[in-house]
């Protein structure tokens, strides 16, 4: 899902080998990425990487892709190791942040030499992790600071809204409240803290502001450039596991660039932790399970080899693999997740597809076959089939049809519509509960086209039914319209009559009042004593509302009552 740009040169520098574009296309697959696009810019080749896995933020940057490929190619094996040295830096977390944004975790990365490309990747990773993994910063927000401008210890505290600092990209101080209103990022992410009594603030021992998580860094410390050597990383959120993981993803990516990781002591009101924690995680799988589901005849050693190429440490024991995997991953819930890694390392395109031999017989749904037979019949009348949208709106279904919402017209239409709370457009804010308005809509868009226009549709009308699991039912209906000069009720009744004879049903028409139709030229279609449809000449005032200047007659029927179980 996350997409980002990487430079071929940068990737090759990280992997330590050059490849052709075609080779890169295949190599990307090891990192669960698709190479979406290739282009040249200022003499450099760039790739658009489309990372498939929303649970693998460690693969969302050039560093992550390069790392996975180095392992897959066997340049490195087993668990990646990162040295973490303890620093003497402490961060104190304010108790009052408990209901505001409770967790912050931190790290220092030293001795960096970031060129423009590396800097771009760092910013990209930070953004993508916060956006996708961090649910638009709600669950994870990341700040990276020039550590040389910061005087520890550092405080993550709840601040009054009137406190001030200069946000990134500004020249003057703004109050925290002003930042939410005036700064672009404040407007974008302000809703995450707006209603809280205090706003979160990260400050150093001299009171200098580093950032206002999860909104914006300060101009003073929050600007990282190619000159920056040492950075301080801050990750905040609501779930300690999640922020720890994001921190691990960011610091190990920087370590791939030659950075040296130093941990920080984080003091919470009721406990203390040292972050980042890069201790590998463990898991265990049955080798037979892997072999069986892979469908591949893999020896224990082969499985071990494949897993080592996916950055696992593997110990084989009693038909099981005891695994250690890197702390920047948190997606292994089940042996299946390990299985997928084995298959990716093996290469999906190296596996011979095999069609399963199953003694089964196919069968279509009988009611759908009945609908198809009705459609054949309608085509036989010379009618053009159309397929229209179910999404519509109340005005189209009632207002433009001269009907009153809330009144039942013997289910054609019923009194109420299924309506959408958060439609993309008011035009598509309900599911239709009868079909004739859809066909009138169609006619209204073709007034310039040659008449006669004779149409039908077999489609769904969605009705409320409180007794069902979804409180709704989508009934199959047949609707017909004839738009042509001198068309009358009789023309449409001829078709209805023929349909009924062909389906083997006796029917009656009962005179009825229905404001969509011309009085005296509208009927309720009754089969076995029940109203199953409506037929009539569309009222000229309805035609006028749709902008149709041609007489229209038509009918609409529920198909379910006309269905009989076939012998075959």
């Amino acid at each position, binding site marked *: 899902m996350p997409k980002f740009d990487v430079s071929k040169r940068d990737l090759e520098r990280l992997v330590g080998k050059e490849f052709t574009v075609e080779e890169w296309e295949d190599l990307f697959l090891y990192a*669960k990425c*698709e190479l979406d696009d290739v282009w040249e810019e200022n003499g450099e080749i760039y790739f658009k990487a489309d990372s*498939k*896995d929303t*649970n693998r933020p460690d693969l969302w940057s050039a560093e992550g892709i390069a790392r996975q490929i180095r392992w897959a190619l066997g340049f490195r094996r087993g668990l990646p190791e990162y040295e973490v040295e303890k620093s003497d830096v402490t961060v104190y977390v304010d108790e009052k942040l408990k209901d505001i944004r409770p967790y912050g975790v931190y790290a220092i990365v030293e001795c960096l030499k970031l060129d423009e490309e590396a800097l771009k990747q760092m910013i990209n990773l930070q953004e993508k992790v916060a956006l*996708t993994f961090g*649910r638009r910063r709600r669950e994870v927000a990341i700040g990276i600071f020039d550590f040389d401008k910061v005087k520890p210890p550092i405080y993550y505290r709840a601040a009054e809204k009137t406190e001030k600092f200069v946000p990134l990209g500004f020249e003057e101080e703004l109050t925290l409240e002003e930042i939410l209103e005036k700064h672009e990022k404040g407007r974008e992410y302000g809703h995450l803290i707006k209603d809280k009594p205090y706003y979160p603030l990260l400050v150093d021992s001299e009171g200098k502001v580093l950032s206002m998580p999860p909104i914006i860094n300060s101009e003073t410390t929050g600007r990282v450039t190619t000159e920056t050597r040492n950075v301080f990383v801050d990750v905040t959120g609501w779930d300690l596991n999640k922020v720890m993981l994001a921190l691990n993803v960011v610091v190990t990516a920087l370590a791939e660039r030659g950075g040296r990781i130093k941990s920080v002591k984080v003091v919470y009101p009721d406990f203390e932790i040292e972050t980042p924690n890069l201790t590998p995680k463990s898991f265990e799988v049955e080798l037979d399970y892997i072999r069986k589901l*892979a*469908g*591949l005849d893999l020896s224990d050693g082969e499985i071990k080899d494949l897993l080592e190429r996916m950055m696992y440490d593997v110990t084989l024991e009693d038909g099981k693999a005891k695994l250690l995997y890197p702390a920047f991953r948190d997606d292994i*819930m*089940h042996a*299946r*997740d390990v*299985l*997928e890694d084995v*298959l990716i390392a093996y290469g*999906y*395109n190296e*596996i011979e*597809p095999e*069609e*399963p031999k*199953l*003694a*089964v017989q*196919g*069968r279509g*749904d009988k009611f759908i076959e009945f609908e*198809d037979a009705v*459609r054949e019949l*309608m085509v*036989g009348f*010379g009618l*053009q*089939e159309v*397929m*229209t*949208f*179910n999404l519509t709106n109340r005005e189209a279904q009632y207002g433009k049809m001269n009907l009153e919402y809330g009144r039942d017209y013997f289910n054609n239409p019923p009194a109420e519509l*299924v*309506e*959408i*709370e*958060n*439609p*993309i457009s008011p035009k598509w804010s309900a*599911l239709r509960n009868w079909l004739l308005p859809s066909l009138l*809509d169609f006619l209204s868009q073709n007034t310039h*086209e040659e008449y006669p*226009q*004779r149409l039908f549709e077999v489609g769904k009308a*969605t009705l409320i039914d*409180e007794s069902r*699991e*979804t*409180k*709704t*039912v*989508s009934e199959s209906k047949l609707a017909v319209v004839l738009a042509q000069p001198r068309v009358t009720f009789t023309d449409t009744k001829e078709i209805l009559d023929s349909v009924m004879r062909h389906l083997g049903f006796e029917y009656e028409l009962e005179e009825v009042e229905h404001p969509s139709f011309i009085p005296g030229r509208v009927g309720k279609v009754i089969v076995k004593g029940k109203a199953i449809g409506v037929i009539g000449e569309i009222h000229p005032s309805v035609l006028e509302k749709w902008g149709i200047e041609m007489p229209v007659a038509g009918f609409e029927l529920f198909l379910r009552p006309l269905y009989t179980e076939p012998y075959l």
Partner: protein
Amino acid sequence: MELSYQEKLTLIKLNELKRAKFEELVKATGLEQVAVMRAVLGLQAKGLAKLHERSEKVVKLTETGKKYAEIGLPEWRALKLLRERGKVTLDDLREVLSDDELKPIVGLLRKEGWASVRKEDGKLILEITEKGLEAEERPIDRALKLLAEKNVVPVKEIEKLIPVKELKRRKIGEEETVTERTVEITPAGEELAPKVELKREVSVLTPELIKSGKWREVEFRRFDIKAPVRRIYPGKKQPYRAFLDKIRRRLIEMGFIEMTVDSLIETQFWNFDALFQPQNHPAREWTDTYQLKYPKSGFLPEEELVERVKTAHERGLAGSRGWGYVWSPERAMLLMPRAHGTALSGRQLAKGVEIPGKYFTIQRVFRPDVLDRTHLIEFNQIDGFVVGEELNFRHLLGILKRFAVEIAGAKKVKFLPDYYPFTEPSVQMSAYHPELGWVEFGGAGIFREEMTKALGIEVPVIAWGIGIDRLAMFKLGIDDIRYLFSYDLRWLREAKLVW
């Protein structure tokens, strides 16, 4: 020599007349003028007749001339009144003359010397003269009579009476060039004519002709089979729907059982939760998932099933650690228009399946997208699953490849790792279409055990979906996805048949 019916008839009549004006020949044959002309030209080409053409200047009556021929020239009408009353005022002449005839009448009568004119009390008085009383037919009157009789008179003949320009000035006559056509039979024609056997020609074979057996005595007019015809439109199926019908039939042939459901509306439980998609998954956010205003929530299925799904999410099932959050039944009850066909697979698995078994559905699904050239607000999805004791990843690839071959006509396929919340491992397939190149054609995976165990299935289930929109667009020759649900009748009428 092959002669048409018209040619035969014309030749026979011409043989009687030997030489005739074209109009006479037309009359004699009783055919349309054009038909006779075509026949004459045909006969001439075959050396059976000869057409002579001579152009001549003629005079014809104008509309005014025709009127005068009927009611008389204005000066005669005025004179008649004068003869009755001796003298009249100019106003009196209105009884017999129209406004535009009134003005020049004084000049005319004076010129002929038929009346004297004087003023009395400021009024013009006309009084008849001797000459007026004795006046007789003049050349112009004879010319008018001649034209009235013959309609068209050669200029030469008129000029014997009166200069043509005089008739033009009075707007009685106009000059025209006419071509006089004379047709003559040749000796070859004379020789052939008696041997020609003539049958009646008909353009339509009528039931009467068949019943009476008269069809034996007629000839059928030859049609111009290359002439253009009216464009007509048959009743036919919507092309995209016909394409879906075809895929449906193919899937049934391939051994798949069709799944259906009673509503386009789904609970989040079946759309997401039963598929092990956590409640905080980004796809479940407000912007990516529709919610209903009315009705808001539906019901959850049987308690045991709900309990298993809840456990799978919260603590894990089947050796999984789960998502580790507190699962909300209220959230799962929320209703939405169904967002993917996989929801039906979940329902079917919970309901019970044949093992081994293959299942599919073609479902209308809804996503909060804007309608444009590349996005639809609702669309059709084709997906399903294959369930069986011994199924593995190679089978998954095999199923996908078969779809590519059967449905996309692909010769080559390529597999890419992919991610779906409810499958692991997951695959995306690209198929090499002869005209489109590599097309993303489908996705598949083995349903996660957390999901299948919760639904009560103990064996592997391969889930698959195929993306047929690009293929359909290619098949239907469109580059705007909205045409799949076309509201353009012209396009539907012209669309090629899908089979």
